[in-house]
């Protein structure tokens, strides 16, 4: 079976996994800070960021995209009146911020070498 190497930068662990493995199946076993909750792509808890090799990860489904955007809206609401609003909006306006750099660990499958970290 084809293998790939996925590195969790926060815990400095690289794991060789069979291609197709979901990030969440590994992240919780190496103690990564990536949090998780529903495991169904619904809650947005398992958000993580891709530091390298985004092209080697599965494409986000419609469900994942919807959850990512809902999550960012929530973050935005939470920051209302916090002062750093502009900086946050600027960050979120970046083209395809959700989906490219940020993904859900319960949905994303590993197809080749990549480096990831909690958001």
């Amino acid at each position, binding site marked *: 079976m084809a293998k790939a190497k996925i590195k969790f930068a926060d*815990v*400095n*662990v*690289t*794991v*060789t*996994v*069979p291609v197709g*493995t979901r990030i969440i199946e*590994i992240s*919780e*076993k*190496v*103690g*990564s*800070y990536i*949090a*998780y909750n529903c495991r169904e792509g*619904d809650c947005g808890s398992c958000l993580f960021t891709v530091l390298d090799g985004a092209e080697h990860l599965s494409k986000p489904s419609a469900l994942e995209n919807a959850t990512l955007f809902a999550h960012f809206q*929530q973050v935005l*609401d939470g920051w*209302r009146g916090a002062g750093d609003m502009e900086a946050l909006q600027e960050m979120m306006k970046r083209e395809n911020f959700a989906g490219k750099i940020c993904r859900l660990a319960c949905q994303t499958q590993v197809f080749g070498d990549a480096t990831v970290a909690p958001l």
Partner: protein
Amino acid sequence: MSAQPVRYDAVTVTERVHWIGALDPTMRTFDVILKTPNGTTYNAYLVRGSEGVAVIDTVKAERADQFFARLEAVADYREIKVIVLNHLEPDHSGALPELMRRAPQAKLYISDAAQLMLKALLNNNDIDYIPVTTNDSVSLGDCTLRFLNTPYLHWPDTQCTYLVEEGVLFSGDVFGCHYCDEQLFNDRVGDFRFSFEYYYAHIMRPFKSYVLSALELIEPLPVRLIAPTHGPILRDHPQHYIQRYRELSTPRLHLEMDRDIKTMIIFYISSYGNTMHMAEAIRDGAAEVGGFRISLYDLEGGEVEPFIDLVEEADAILVGSPTINGDAVKPVWDLLSSFARINVKGKVAGAFGSYGWTGEAVRMIDDRLRGLKMRVPLGGLRIKLIPGADELKDCHLFGRDIGEFLMGKPRAREIDMSQL
């Protein structure tokens, strides 16, 4: 002789607000986990403005007759313009479908997070509602209901609603308790402080950080009365209860000792001293990393309650157990089963233990720790019977590696998934 029909009246709370809830004095166990020696109340409220009436929360379906009778005593269904549900748990949403049937013109206001739950709870996809969040409001003519998004107190959907003109905070389960006294108001009911504290400890405690976020929204408000969904209405010194929530939710260790130093706790229990020797070697290994405080506790020498207080404020928890009859021992499970009452998510954790035959305990503890969403960087360490010099060295390295992980400088590791 026929019994007199019971008459249910609404109770005046303020000029615009009536209590239209239900008393449930026979309830003894709430939601499986909570005891109550005198029952509970399901508090619902009616707010009358110059241009319509709002109903805030409903009651458990089994007590809906009380709710509707009290509502009818002060309003006509056709006057209801607004229904607010601060929390969708069935003890507050039970009478909602019937209320919406009787007042079809009313608009339902719920939090953003409540939307999916509403469908799942009522098994109805056709309910019309308006999702709201902090700073959204709805006018009743001469008065305004403003919403505060206060999630995870104690469900994702929870919110508070504030009646601006009268300083009334409809707080949902926050500031509530299971206490049934028909005198209703905190200055007239019996001493309910034990119940208030107990409710916080079992319902709100796992969500302390969310309590603190909610208090940021609540504390600036000139609250004159708190109207929770359970227990007494807090009209006498309402600020006292807000302050109490602040006290109960603020981490104490970091206030009373050095706030920047992390804490590791190593719990163990040992029949012949082997698991204890492992614990000591792990502590020595962790101490080598330095920069954090380490405490070693024998579970045989203490009660679960104070240990839980320690765990709540610690950053890393290691648990050592021998294996007896293929399982970790009962004091270990008593400790681990109590972790659900606090928030341990994200804390660093690990398991270890000496065993005689098969050593299942360590893997079981690992699974429990991971199941609680603690971060378990290394698979548990198992040693057969008496740890020798090499094995004590393994313990030392185990402690060191977890210490380094705790301090945010984990050693690089390359592993195959099959090793996990």
